[in-house]
């Protein structure tokens, strides 16, 4: 597994490629703990956001099991009035959580930036 510093560098590269970047974290799904964090906005509680989003992913996986769906989650998108939040599963136990400013970015840019670097987080 890459070190925290290496992971943080990958998040920094995602920040460079995604305009309107607010924050991103790599999160351990089971425990909700952050493995690396990067934020450009003071006061954005990335630790809490990551922990709660891990619950969100776990609930979605539970729904899928209940519905007996065979597929896996690739990503989850939450669109707020002023932000876009993207959750991208890196592997079955880890996900990338990222928030961008909607006014300065769009979904295509976010997806491209993430797709470009996500393999380096595994």
């Amino acid at each position, binding site marked *: *597994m890459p*070190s*925290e510093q290496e992971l943080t560098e990958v998040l920094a590269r995602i920040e460079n490629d995604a305009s309107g970047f607010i924050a991103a974290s790599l999160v*351990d799904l*089971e*425990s*909700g*703990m*952050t*493995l*690396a*964090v990067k934020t450009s906005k003071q006061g954005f509680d*990335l*630790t*809490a956001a*990551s*922990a*709660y989003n891990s619950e969100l992913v776990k609930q979605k996986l539970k729904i899928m099991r209940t519905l007996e769906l065979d597929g896996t989650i690739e990503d989850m998108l939450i669109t707020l009035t002023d932000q876009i939040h993207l959750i991208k599963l890196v592997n079955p136990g880890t996900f990338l959580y990222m928030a961008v400013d909607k006014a300065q970015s769009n979904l295509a840019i976010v997806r491209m930036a993430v797709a470009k670097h996500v393999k380096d987080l595994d």
Partner: protein
Amino acid sequence: MAVLDKERGVIVLRVAYDGPPFSGKTTTVRALAEGLGVEVVTPGEANGRTLFFDYADYIGGIFEGRRIRCQIVSVPGQTVLRERRLALLDSADVIVFVADMRESAAEKSFALLEEVREDFLGRSPPVGIILQANKRDAATSLPLASIRARLSDGPVAITQTVATTGEGVRETFVFAIRVALDRVRAIGGTRGLTEQAPAIDDASDLLESIAGLGPGEADHSPGQPVADARSPEPSDEPTPPALGPSEGPALDAEPPKVLPFRPDPAMPGGLLWPPVEGRALLHEVHQLGLVATPTERGSWSASGEGWRFHSRHDALFDTLDAGRRALIEWARSHSALLDELSPDRVLLLSESEGGHRLWQLVRQRLSVAEELSALSGAPDVTPLALSDRLCDVAERLDRCLRRWPDAGLPCTRWTVSLDLHGRTLFAGLMPPPGQTTRRTPEVRSALIRELQALVLMLGDARVDLEVVAALIRQRASSLSTDAPIRLLEEALGEVVAA
């Protein structure tokens, strides 16, 4: 003498383990501490001989609505350290006299016990003495009837132990606490206690209080054990190794190391689990100012104010990355067992000793053993209430024994706890993630062992145990022979018959 520490909301009692050399005092205290999940501090030791004391601190049980804090102290057995021994015994609320009851050693034990009885039974109120007949697994161990016959002229209770395996050690301790509480009752209960913080609050205070007593430099060369006027009798304990100039710490060794542990509530999120609730709990823990003490095996622990902190000997990491990897593993194992665990647990990684140390913080809860012990000693307890509780605990232990060991959680009367909604919870320290493959015990025999130990704790219950046994027999009559209540009936029946 016991005191009421109002600031911390606890009654502070001291249990002293006395006895002749090589009787198994230190082994007893270490076995007890391991079972209680607390650490032992031994400030000085030379070739297996205690020079000052062994010390452990444990909070458990309730008396008149207050938690009981037990300072567990063993004294040095060597004759030349008599001054230290007497100073330690002087402040005891109860004395557990550990005696080697093999034929070859019993006379020395009886002789010393006689001295202790003369000194302490005459005090007002008298200090209770329990004879812990140790080494009961030895072929030459005296029969219980012979021991009783030797003690017929005075009020000394007898328990039987094999300290090397821990058998009977915890039960003796629980009994000792009850005897100590009887002494508190004799002075009017909690209201009769002096309200003050304990003068001796930890091992370093205790060491300071007795460091000036005993042999001086002339009597003792650094690194050498203190000469004992008594020649050590044959023992099945490990033979002390040959003496050497560099072996063992000096008598005037440094006071024990302590590690102030005040976790920072503002610590980075990635070093803390659970990420959100953990921070809120850290705000509470931060105020406590607890100090962790080390053990010989290199682990650290602290307890107080309803919390237990523990860091294993192998939980110190050279790099932050290594520490974080371990933290994630521990956090995953906690998350996976969240439904079974008692609430208010924190894992954190803190800078320490030039590296990063992983800590486990657990809010203490009453175990079913402590709860039963409190209930059986309550002034208003009824046989029906006690029998109901016993049956409930037996069934819960049975369920936990079937479920927990596969998940790596040890199930004993001391690790099972109940929440306000009656849910069964694991209240102990979590084992490391790698230990989840331990062998699953045979449920029936494990349950019988736990139930026997539980009913032994009811020896001085304030209700007629025969009535309790009859009520349980009534409930058990329609159940299968393997039902937990049936096993409880058998265990209680044996105690009542004895």
